[in-house]
């Protein structure tokens, strides 16, 4: 990130179309109401799916309301002078944001309806996550996006790269240039420089110095969150004690929740689940086919259609793991600090985001194996019986990497199904046919 990349003053609208205040207000009212309905329905179905649903889930149900308590809290903090820093990719170093006493929130849109608005700006062939995020900004639908004082945009895929340019019509954007080949010393050095510049940027913007002490505290909080997160995923390795959707919701709420409170609530959930495991009170038969989802990020709330289909299908499946940047990639890897000097901490943050990432935006001369290895490990450790490879139309990197993933999974005799979809509800029927056939196949294999 260098000076020229910093677009401080939104100039004329280079991308965004003119849209009247009246249209914004009308669309926002309709779409917000529709979204609140979807959120409530998703939660209702999740409650029904598990008659002994843990009490601790109540908290996450509440936080799942994007228009609810959390946005009010953030608003109150903002009024006291705190800055909100939004981000669109997991590479954004949230520890730095926390250390500067600012609030990090991820702002990618999970709304189907707004992707149609995005079509006014970019062609329909563009990834719907991008189109929907553009549309949400156009009508100010996302509370967290609106509350963001600046956005960190990491230039990973083509969509994210241009999205940051488009959003700069409205917001202060800090681009971070991520190297595409990560396993080289220059790349790490380059990326660590980006991290250091981001530190300066955040300090200047918030007016708060990132000291050794507050950065250490932020990293320690992140460690504790990672520990709680890992404990939850560990509990999904055995006979199922939590529905996949519930665990996925817990993971995803981390993206906008208060980090300390999220950690405490997740710990409480794990306590409950451990007792449940002792009672052998499974959420479904331990013979239920164990499914892992990988591919395009699946943002709350509208993108719950695949997990819902898998877990409500006949025959039923249970999602025991995912490999997505909207899910288990969020917190799996801790910041590995040795000496707690400022330099050491910053380098450790850089490494945690770059080296651990299994984002398909990376390649390397020797064919970066990280994602494949990680997937194979997950299959083994979580006893996965089938993988759904989820791709939205226009998500090129995930679509292209499928062949490689399939070959790797074929070798260990794990079936994988490529499920392509869009930001739409209309294809649920078709998806159901495919998901059911896949689960039927897994069930037959289990019975064999």
């Amino acid at each position, binding site marked *: 990130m260098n000076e020229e990349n910093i677009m401080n003053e939104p100039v004329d609208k280079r991308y965004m179309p003119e849209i009247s205040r009246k249209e914004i207000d009308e669309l926002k009212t309709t779409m917000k109401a529709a979204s609140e309905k979807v959120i409530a329905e998703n939660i209702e179905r999740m409650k029904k799916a598990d008659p002994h649903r843990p009490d601790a889930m109540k908290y996450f149900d509440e936080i799942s309301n994007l228009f609810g308590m959390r946005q009010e809290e953030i608003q109150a903090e903002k009024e006291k002078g705190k800055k909100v820093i939004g981000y669109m990719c997991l590479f954004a170093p949230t520890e730095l944001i926390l250390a500067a006493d600012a609030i990090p929130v991820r702002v990618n849109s999970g709304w189907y309806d707004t992707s149609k608005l995005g079509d006014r700006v970019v062609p329909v062939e563009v990834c719907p996550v991008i189109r929907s995020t553009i549309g949400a900004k156009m009508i100010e639908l996302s509370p967290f996006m609106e509350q963001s004082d600046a956005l960190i945009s990491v230039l990973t895929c083509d969509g994210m790269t241009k999205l940051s340019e488009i959003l700069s019509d409205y917001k202060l954007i800090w681009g971070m240039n991520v190297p595409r080949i990560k396993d080289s010393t220059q790349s790490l050095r380059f990326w660590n420089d980006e991290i250091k510049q981001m530190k300066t940027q955040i300090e200047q913007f918030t007016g708060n110095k990132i000291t050794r002490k507050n950065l250490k505290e932020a990293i320690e909080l992140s460690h504790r969150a990672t520990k709680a997160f890992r404990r939850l995923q560990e509990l999904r390795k055995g006979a199922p004690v939590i529905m996949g959707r519930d665990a996925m919701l817990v993971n995803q709420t981390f993206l906008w929740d208060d980090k300390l409170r999220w950690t405490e609530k997740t710990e409480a959930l794990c306590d409950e689940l451990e007792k449940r495991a002792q009672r052998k009170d499974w959420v479904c038969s331990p013979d239920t086919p164990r499914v892992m989802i990988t591919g395009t990020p699946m943002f709350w709330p509208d993108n719950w259609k695949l997990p819902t289909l898998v877990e409500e299908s*006949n025959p039923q499946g249970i999602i025991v793991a995912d490999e997505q940047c909207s899910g288990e990639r969020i917190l799996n890897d801790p910041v590995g600090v040795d000496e707690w000097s400022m330099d050491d901490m910053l380098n450790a943050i850089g490494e945690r985001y770059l080296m651990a990432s299994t984002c398909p935006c990376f390649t390397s001369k020797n064919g970066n194996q990280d994602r494949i290895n990680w997937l194979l490990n997950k299959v083994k450790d979580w006893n996965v019986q089938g993988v759904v490879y989820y791709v939205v139309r226009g998500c090129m990197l995930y679509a292209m990497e499928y062949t490689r993933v399939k070959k790797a999974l074929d070798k260990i005799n794990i*079936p994988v*199904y*490529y499920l*392509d979809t869009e930001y739409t509800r209309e*294809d649920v*029927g*078709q998806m159901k*046919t*495919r998901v*059911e*056939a*896949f689960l*039927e*196949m897994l069930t*037959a*294999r289990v019975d*064999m």
Partner: protein
Amino acid sequence: MITVGMDLGTQRVKTVVLKDGAVASRGQALSGFDPTKAAEQAVDEALKVANLKLSDVAYFAATGSAMDMAPYANSTVSMMGADAKAGVYLFPKARTIIDVGAEEARAVKCGDKGIMVDFVVNERCAAGAGVFIEAMARALEVKLEDMGPLALKAERASPINASCVIFGESDVVSLIHRQEPKPEIARAVFDAMADRISSMVHRLGVNPDVVLIGGVAKDEGFVASLNRKLGLTVSIPEYPDYAGALGAALTAATRAKGAQK
């Protein structure tokens, strides 16, 4: 034991009555706006032919895109699962089953006993399915059933784009404007479909024992194109359009036996 399989497809409902593991009769009706009623009719027809009553049936299983609307159904089976069962029943050595219906094409890979191990569905597009031929026949002002024989007369093919029915149609129109002979255009239509379907099959990995089922298997023009593209001769049962219903009836028989135990 009597079992009935119902395949509630997008255009037609097909039924098969199975008596002690052998096909006793078949029935069909147009799906129309009321697939449930159409299925009742098709079941009725098949039972009549076999001289049976509803109460004689031990188990009903349904498949097809409208399977959730099936009457009498004790359970459902996915279309891919039914394809695999029927394919291996009809041709015991078959390990790849291609099903081309009105609005969907799919390929299923299976193991012994017709257990499906992998499948691919054409991606939310009708260009690899029966309606593509219908649309192109309209553009050529040829009857649907004449498309196949016409294509077989072609000496070569003109390439068209089969990524989409709509674009395919405009490609056909421009071939018509260029006054390409009709047989060649007809063959181009089948070649384009066969191209899409063979790449689907290649994604699963080809093996030499391939079965083609579904209504489109009755179209000799398509079969010729597909054989050329795959470089082999696909096996086609006598009633390819009833294969889904047969698969459901076979599943019904297995499940009925399981229930007896």
